[in-house]
């Protein structure tokens, strides 16, 4: 070849040009019509509102990981789609993608997943809505979603974080996150998504499992929150399970189940923990309870989970004396594990104080102030200590 440098260079350049032209053809594939341009503009407006709402969950490492998985699943995509994932601080089981490839996953849904293959199932399904132009197809067949959207906003008005998301999404987000697309388009998203995850080397047996987990978790939620979002609806989850099982049955070689996915577990650790807090804040104690069991199993040496478990039990069963004893034992477990854990000392002190056992409360509350001299709730604790000492002095 060195004898023909010209030919060598010519061939190399030709191959590169050919490759670039193929890539360019793929990238040029999308030509917008007027209505699609409008849908994209609307999507960007809705995304700006969501991004500025304060509902975005901040975890750079997790976001980078999710976006890597998304790129792996998506493969080649037509210009100008730019796949990108953001996580929403919302306890509900949902995710939705805009036509431009921007996807929002609710922390509640991500917290229920067990491995990367399940994540790839969701991403494969959602990104297909963007790459296969489902939004514009749906808008053309269904003139207006405004009435349904208005109805949904009213319904979701009082649901805290759920309502907060509902208020932010407009017509495009409504279709992507609430009503979903037609059965055919959803089936196409299942099928293309399945092929995408298979091609990327993910374990496809996890696909129906994901929706089975969501269905199980849905039954733990308050009735008012069911049916609000696409992935929080029994019939839609049943459709997904049926479609993915059918796709699995069509395979000639069936893979084994996925094993423990340590990378996924590590990357989603903080989110799983934080979402338990979001569940508690939203009064979703059952969901918080089950997630806390998962977290405690994965990370048994993280004492903070026992504090959360105690908080959940305390709120779920305020008047059950047996459960209240368990609450106290959980606090005690943390103090015994590490006596420098200020929160545990405080909660144990408060628990005894509430029961009127001032003698038992005193050392824990004092220990808390010693460990956290600048605590934000110092004023309250000092008040309890004053009350304890006054009571003791009067005896």
């Amino acid at each position, binding site marked *: 070849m060195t004898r023909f440098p010209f030919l060598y260079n010519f061939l190399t350049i030709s191959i590169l040009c050919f490759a670039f032209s193929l890539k360019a053809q793929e990238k040029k594939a999308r030509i917008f019509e007027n209505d699609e341009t409008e849908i994209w503009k609307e999507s960007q407006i809705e995304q700006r509102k969501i991004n500025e709402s*304060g509902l975005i969950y901040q975890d750079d490492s997790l976001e980078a990981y999710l976006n890597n998985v998304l790129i792996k699943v998506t493969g080649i995509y037509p210009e100008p789609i730019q796949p990108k994932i953001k996580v929403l601080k919302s306890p509900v089981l949902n995710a939705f993608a805009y036509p431009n490839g921007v996807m929002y996953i609710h922390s509640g849904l991500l917290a229920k997943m067990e491995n990367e293959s399940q994540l790839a199932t969701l991403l494969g399904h959602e990104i297909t809505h963007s790459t296969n132009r489902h939004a514009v197809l749906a808008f053309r067949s269904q003139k207006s979603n405004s009435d349904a959207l208005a109805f949904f906003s009213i319904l979701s008005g*009082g649901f*805290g974080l759920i*309502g907060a998301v509902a208020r932010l999404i407009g017509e495009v987000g409504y279709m992507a996150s609430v009503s979903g697309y037609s059965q055919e388009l959803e089936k196409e998203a299942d099928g293309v998504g399945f092929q995408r995850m298979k091609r990327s080397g993910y374990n496809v047996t996890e696909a129906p499992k994901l929706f089975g987990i969501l269905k199980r978790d849905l039954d733990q939620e308050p009735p008012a929150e069911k049916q609000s979002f696409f992935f929080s609806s029994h019939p839609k989850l049943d459709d997904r399970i049926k479609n993915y099982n059918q796709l699995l049955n069509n395979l000639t070689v069936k893979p084994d189940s996925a094993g423990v996915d340590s990378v996924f577990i590590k990357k989603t650790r903080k989110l799983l923990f934080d979402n338990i807090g979001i569940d*508690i804040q939203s009064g979703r104690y059952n969901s918080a309870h089950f997630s806390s069991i998962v977290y405690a199993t994965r990370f048994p040496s993280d004492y903070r989970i026992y504090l959360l478990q105690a908080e959940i039990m305390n709120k779920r069963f305020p008047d059950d004396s047996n459960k209240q004893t368990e609450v106290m034992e959980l606090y005690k477990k943390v103090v015994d594990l590490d006596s420098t854990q200020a929160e545990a000392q405080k909660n144990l002190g*408060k628990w005894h104080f509430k029961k009127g056992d001032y003698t038992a409360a005193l050392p824990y509350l004092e220990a808390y102030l010693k460990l956290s001299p600048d605590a934000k709730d110092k004023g309250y604790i000092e*008040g309890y200590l004053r009350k304890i000492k006054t009571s003791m002095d009067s005896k």
Partner: protein
Amino acid sequence: MKKITYSLLLLSIFLVSCGPQWNTVTKSVSDKKTGAVLAAPTGWKYMELQNKIMLTPDSPDLGLLVYQVLSVSNPMRFTKQIVQKNMLPEDLAALITDNYQLNQGLSQFKVLENNPEVLAGIEGFRLISEYKSGDGNPMKMLTVGISLQDNAVILEFTAPKRVYFDKYKPEIEAILSKFQLSPDLKK
């Protein structure tokens, strides 16, 4: 067609006149159910709603004091957590804060101060917070609350952060210092 329009107009006027109305404070305002007494200045306006009394020095947009009684076992509007019997003051404050944080109408909600407070002789909490209203106006809020056997009593004053919160705060502090509860409720 004209008849229908006319009937609808009359119906709307009727419905509006039947609804709760703003009244002028002449002496003080009391809650018949709980026996609570709010010594608001003469000339302020008040409106009685179910489990709630609203007072305003001028206009609700420029300053609104809401007195409300939360029953135990009822989930809060936004958090779905429930008020428990005899909650510790800081726990009640945390519950109220969670409810504010999940309220879609209070964007960029932030707690500035959270301290113990005594209201009607009972130990409670005092929160000072700020947020942006739906139309983007910076608002400031003072919330004082106490936990009782079967209820929690919450007093919440909201006003635009600029000018009005500080303008009405001395009068609000006076109302809080004179606030009384019925002896039955205190049990």
